[in-house]
C-alpha cells in the first residue's frame, strides 16, 4: 500500500527540518486566516474554480513569486557554500545536499518562476489585446493553471518527504538512471515536470487557438500587437517542443520503473539519445521564455517613446525566423559529445545566425526610441537594463557558439554566467517590465515608481556583481556545480559573486515592499481611467480592473494601434449593450490537479494501488465533466449597462 514510503523519508538534516517547519507554519497560518475570516466560500467561488483569464493570471503570478523565493534561497545556499568551501574547508553542506540545491534551483527557476510569470502575463493581456472576452477554452485554461500548481506542490513536497533529484536540472542519464540514482529524487523530478508540462502544453494549445480564432473583427494577423505575435511564436514552440520533453521523460521513467534500456549504459541503451532529445526541447524552451519578453519590450518601448513601433513587419519576420532557427541549434549544448567537426560546424553557424534576427530587434527598439518623447518610468528602466545586459549575454553566447572555444569553456562557470546573463537580463527583466507596465490594467492602480526604481537599480548592480566574476572564474578553469575547490585564488571571486546575490536579494525584498506599499496606497495610485499610460492598443480601452466580460461592446479594428487611432479621430456614439454569454465556473481543474498530484506522489513512492486509483480519478473526472451541459450563463444587457455606468473605461 505505501510502497517504499517509510518514516525514514522525513527530514533529518536541521536545515531541511527548519524549512519544513517554516512551510508547515505558513500553510497552517494561511488556512487559519482564511477560516477565521470565513473566506472559504469566497475563495472557492471567486478564485479556485474561476475560469476568468484575469484571475487565473493573478494565481499564476502569486505562485511564481512564492517559488521565486524558494529558487533564491537555493541559489543563496549554493553561493554560500562556494564562498567558503575552499582548500581544507568542506563548507557547510554535504555534497549530496549541494547537488540537490542547484538542481532544485534550476528546475524551480525555469519551470516554476519563468514559465508561470510568462503565463501570468499572457493570460492577463492576450484576450484584452485581441479585444475578446476570454481565451478560446476557459475551462481548459483553469485546468492548465491547476496542473501547474500541482507540479509546484509536488516540488515542495519533495523538500520534506524524501529528497529531490541531484543530477542537474536536465537529469542526464546514466547518472539519472536507476543504477546511479536509486532514490526517489529523480522520480520527483520526472513527475513534477510531467504534470506541470502537460499544463503548459494545454495552455499553448489554448492561446494559439485564441489568437487564430478569437481576434476582434478587423484585426488581421498583421494588425496584431507585436506582443501577440511573440506569444503566438512562443506557444507554437511549446506545442512542438513540449511533447518531446514529455516523451523523453516518459522514456526515462520507463527505464526506472519497468527496467527498460533506453538510456542505460548496458543492454544497448544510448544515453546520448536522451541528451539529444532533451535539448531538442531545451533550446526552444529558452526562446519560449524570451520571445514574449521581446514582445513586452516592444509594447513598452513604443508606448513610452510615444511612437509607433519601428519596423513592425521586420519585427514579425524576425520573431518567426527565431522560431524556426531555434529548432536547428540544439547540438550547441554538447559540442564535446564527439559528433564530428562537420556536425559541430553546422550547429555553430546556425547558432550565430540567430544573432541576426535578434540584432534586428535590438535596432528596431533603438530606432523606435530615436526622436521619440521618452518617458523613463520603471518599465522603460527595465528595458534600458535589458538592452545593455542582454546584448552582453548575446555576445558571450556568440563566443560559446564557436565549437573550438566551447571545448575550453563548456560546462564551466563561463556558461553559467552566459545563460544567467540572457535569462535574467532578458526574461526576468522583460517580465518585470511587463508587470510594472500592465499592473494598473489588472488592478486599477499603479505600482509605486520610487520603490520600483530602487528595485531596478539593485537588480542590475547586483546582477553584474554576481555574474561578472563567474565569467572570469570560467576562463580560469572553474567548472560548474562544484561543492568544493582547491585553488584559494578563486575564493575572492566567489565572495564577490555572493555579495552580488545579496544586492539582488535586497532588490527582491524592495519589490515585495513595493507591492505591499502600493496596495496600501492604492487610492492615491489609482488610475483615473482605464488608460493608465496613454496607451495605443485595445487593452487600454476597457476599464481597469476590467469587468468579467472585458469589453461591453467588442471593438472593431482598422490597422495598427487601434486605440491610438481612435484618440486621433474620436467618433463618439451611444453604446448599445447586448446580452453577454459567459462561461460558468468549474471545479474540474482543481479535481484533475488533485488526482494528478496524487498520481505523481504515489508513483514516486511506488504505491501502485493508489496510483491506479488516481488514474481512475482522472479518467472519471474527465468523463464526468463531459456530461455537464450548462456551461454558460447570460449576463443581461441591463446588468452590463449598470456595470459600465460605474466603470472608468475610456
Amino acid at each position, binding site marked *: 500500500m505505501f510502497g517504499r514510503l517509510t518514516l525514514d523519508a522525513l527530514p533529518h538534516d536541521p536545515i531541511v527540518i527548519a524549512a519544513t517547519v517554516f512551510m508547515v507554519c505558513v500553510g497552517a497560518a494561511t488556512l487559519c486566516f482564511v477560516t477565521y475570516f470565513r473566506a472559504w466560500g469566497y475563495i472557492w467561488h471567486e478564485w479556485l474554480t474561476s475560469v476568468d483569464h484575469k484571475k487565473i493570471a493573478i494565481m499564476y503570478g502569486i505562485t511564481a513569486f512564492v517559488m521565486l523565493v524558494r529558487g533564491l534561497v537555493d541559489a543563496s545556499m549554493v553561493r554560500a557554500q562556494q564562498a567558503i568551501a575552499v582548500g581544507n574547508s568542506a563548507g557547510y553542506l554535504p555534497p549530496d545536499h549541494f547537488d540537490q540545491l542547484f538542481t532544485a534551483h534550476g528546475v524551480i527557476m525555469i519551470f516554476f518562476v519563468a514559465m508561470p510569470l510568462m503565463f501570468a502575463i499572457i493570460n492577463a493581456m492576450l484576450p484584452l489585446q485581441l479585444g475578446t472576452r476570454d481565451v478560446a477554452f476557459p475551462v481548459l485554461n483553469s485546468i492548465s493553471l491547476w496542473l501547474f500548481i500541482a507540479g509546484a506542490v509536488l516540488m515542495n513536497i519533495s523538500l520534506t518527504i524524501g529528497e529531490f533529484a541531484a543530477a542537474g536540472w536536465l537529469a542526464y542519464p546514466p547518472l539519472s538512471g536507476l543504477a546511479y540514482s536509486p532514490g526517489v529524487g529523480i522520480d520527483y523530478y520526472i513527475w513534477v515536470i510531467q504534470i506541470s508540462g502537460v499544463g503548459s502544453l494545454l495552455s499553448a494549445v489554448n492561446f494559439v487557438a485564441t489568437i487564430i480564432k478569437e481576434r476582434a473583427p478587423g484585426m488581421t494577423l498583421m494588425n496584431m500587437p507585436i506582443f501577440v505575435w511573440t506569444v503566438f511564436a512562443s506557444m507554437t514552440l511549446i506545442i512542438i517542443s513540449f511533447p518531446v520533453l514529455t516523451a523523453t521523460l516518459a522514456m526515462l521513467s520507463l527505464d526506472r520503473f519497468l527496467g527498460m534500456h533506453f538510456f542505460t549504459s548496458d543492454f544497448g*541503451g544510448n544515453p546520448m539519445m536522451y541528451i539529444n532529445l532533451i535539448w531538442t526541447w531545451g533550446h526552444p524552451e529558452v526562446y519560449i521564455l524570451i520571445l514574449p519578453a521581446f514582445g513586452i519590450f516592444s509594447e513598452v518601448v513604443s508606448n513610452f517613446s510615444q511612437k509607433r513601433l519601428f519596423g513592425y513587419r521586420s519585427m514579425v519576420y524576425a520573431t518567426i525566423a527565431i522560431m524556426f532557427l531555434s529548432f536547428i541549434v540544439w547540438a550547441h549544448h554538447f559540442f564535446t559529445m564527439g559528433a564530428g567537426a562537420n556536425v559541430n560546424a553546422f550547429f555553430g553557424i546556425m547558432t550565430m545566425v540567430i544573432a541576426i534576427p535578434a540584432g534586428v530587434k535590438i535596432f528596431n527598439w533603438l530606432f523606435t526610441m530615436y526622436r521619440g518623447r521618452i518617458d523613463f518610468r520603471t518599465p522603460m528602466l527595465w528595458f534600458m537594463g535589458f538592452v545593455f545586459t542582454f546584448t552582453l549575454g548575446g555576445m558571450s553566447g556568440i563566443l560559446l557558439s564557436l565549437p573550438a572555444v566551447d571545448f575550453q569553456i563548456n560546462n564551466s562557470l563561463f556558461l553559467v554566467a552566459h545563460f544567467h546573463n540572457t535569462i535574467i537580463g532578458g526574461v526576468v527583466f522583460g517580465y518585470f517590465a511587463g508587470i510594472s507596465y500592465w499592473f494598473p490594467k489588472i488592478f486599477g492602480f499603479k505600482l509605486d515608481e520610487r520603490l520600483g526604481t530602487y528595485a531596478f537599480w539593485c537588480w542590475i548592480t547586483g546582477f553584474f556583481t554576481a555574474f561578472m566574476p563567474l565569467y572570469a572564474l570560467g576562463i580560469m578553469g572553474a567548472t560548474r556545480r562544484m561543492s568544493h575547490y582547491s585553488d584559494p585564488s578563486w575564493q575572492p571571486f566567489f565572495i564577490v559573486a555572493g555579495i552580488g546575490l545579496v544586492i539582488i536579494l535586497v532588490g527582491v525584498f524592495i519589490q515585495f515592499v513595493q507591492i505591499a506599499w502600493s496596495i496600501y496606497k492604492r487610492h492615491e495610485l489609482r488610475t483615473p481611467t482605464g488608460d493608465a499610460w496613454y496607451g495605443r492598443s485595445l487593452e487600454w480601452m476597457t476599464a481597469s480592473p476590467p469587468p468579467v466580460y472585458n469589453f461591453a461592446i467588442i471593438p472593431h479594428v482598422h490597422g495598427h494601434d487601434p486605440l491610438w487611432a481612435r484618440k486621433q479621430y474620436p467618433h463618439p456614439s451611444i453604446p448599445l449593450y447586448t446580452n453577454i454569454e459567459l462561461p460558468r465556473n468549474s471545479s474540474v481543474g482543481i479535481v484533475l490537479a488533485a488526482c494528478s498530484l496524487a498520481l505523481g506522489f504515489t508513483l514516486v513512492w511506488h504505491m501502485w494501488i493508489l496510483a491506479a486509483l488516481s488514474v481512475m480519478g482522472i479518467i472519471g473526472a474527465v468523463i464526468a465533466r463531459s456530461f455537464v451541459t450548462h456551461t454558460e450563463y447570460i449576463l443581461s444587457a441591463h446588468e452590463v449597462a449598470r456595470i459600465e455606468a460605474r466603470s472608468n473605461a475610456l
Partner: protein
Amino acid sequence: MTHAHTLKDNRTLFGFWLYLMSDCLIFASLFATYAVLRSATYGAPGARELFSLEFVFLETVILLSSSFTMGLTVYFAHKGKRALMFGLLALTFCLGTAFIALEVSEFSHLIQEGLSWERSAFLSAFFTLVGTHGLHVLCGLIWMIVLAIQLALPRYHEIVMRRLICLSLFWHFLDIIWIGIFTFVYLFSFIV
C-alpha cells in the same frame, strides 16, 4: 445550426487539431528513438527474426477498416440515420477491440519467450512505440463508449456532433500513426 454553434465547432476542432499535432510529436520522438536503437539488440533477436508479416498485415487490415467504419459513422450521423450510425460505431468499437486483442497476444507471446522490454534497448523501443499507440487506441475505445451514451441522450444533441467529429479525427490520426509503425517497424525490418 446556429451561428454561435458553428463558431464554437470551428474553435473546438481547431484546438483539437492542435492537440493532435502535439501528440504527433510524441510519436515522432518515439520513432526517432526507435530508429536509433533498432540495431541495439544486445545479442537478443532483432526485428527480422521476431515479426511475422502475416500477423501484422491482419492487424493493419483490421485497424484500417475500423477507420472506414468510423468515417461511415460520421456520414450517417450527418444524414440523421441514427440506427446505422449506432451500428457502425459498434462495429468500429469491435474492430478496435480486436486490434487491441491481437496486440496483447503479440506482446504476451514475446514476453513468454523471455523477450520482454528488459532484454534489449531495441525491445524497449519497440514495446514503447507500439504500446503507446495501443494505449491511444484504448483511450479511443473508452471515448466511444462515453460518446455512444451521449449520442443516445437527447440533452447532448447540440454538442455531440462536434465530439463525434473530434473522435473520428483522433481515430484517423491513430490510423496514420499505425501506417508509420507498420512501415518503419515491421516492413523495414524485412527490407533493410
